[in-house]
């Protein structure tokens, strides 16, 4: 069972996982591993104070891309459930932006798939961030930070 949510208003990722489990995993005892990632808005980026952020997207393509990212992960790992949520609209510091949650029988698949889905989302899903700085200036975020440590 997979679910994709686009939230135009603030959402609570932990409540969302709880609701998903209560709705879809009730009585199931076959999942041993849940790997989850939550991305949250920081109030600081590239040396500047960020007051708020506008998150634009391409609605018709977003849903298609997120479903396709999940389908790709399912080809690579034995996944039982994927929950993928993303915020759009006007975002304040400490607001959750993205939630990726993956259920599998074993932890290797859950960890690998959660991270890969997050990287794929960063590279393929049509979302754009515009930062409104405390200084009054606005700027589009040009590119994402790397998803892996440089070592």
């Amino acid at each position: 069972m997979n679910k994709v949510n686009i939230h135009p208003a603030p959402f609570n990722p932990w409540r969302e996982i709880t609701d998903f489990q209560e709705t879809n995993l009730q009585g199931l005892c076959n999942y041993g591993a849940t790997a989850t990632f939550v991305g949250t808005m920081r109030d600081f980026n590239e040396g500047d104070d960020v007051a708020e952020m506008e998150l634009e997207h391409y609605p018709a393509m977003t849903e298609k891309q997120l479903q396709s990212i999940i389908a790709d992960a399912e080809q690579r790992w034995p996944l039982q459930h994927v929950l993928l949520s993303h915020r759009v609209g006007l975002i304040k510091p400490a607001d959750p932006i993205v939630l990726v949650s993956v259920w599998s029988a074993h932890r290797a698949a859950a960890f690998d798939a959660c991270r890969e889905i997050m990287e794929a989302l960063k590279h393929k899903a049509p979302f754009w961030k515009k930062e409104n700085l405390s200084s009054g200036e606005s700027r589009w975020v040009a590119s994402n930070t790397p998803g892996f440590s440089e070592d």
Partner: protein
Amino acid sequence: MKAVKVLYFASLRELLGKSGDTLPLDVEQTALTIWQTLNPNSSLPESCLIAINQEYAAADSIVNAGDELAFFPPVTGG
């Protein structure tokens, strides 16, 4: 007559000062040709991403009447 619906997003939308265009289309054309027809004074940015019917495509991909064509900068979600 059939047409192609064109969409622009984020910084590209602001740069062009419009979120979309509708272009009547008799014969199939590449995405790049359609961009050049609609935006004769702006060359297609090198980093620009292109989607046809919500799937990623290339500048020389073919667009048909009835398709939805989108141009946008590198994505920065997540």
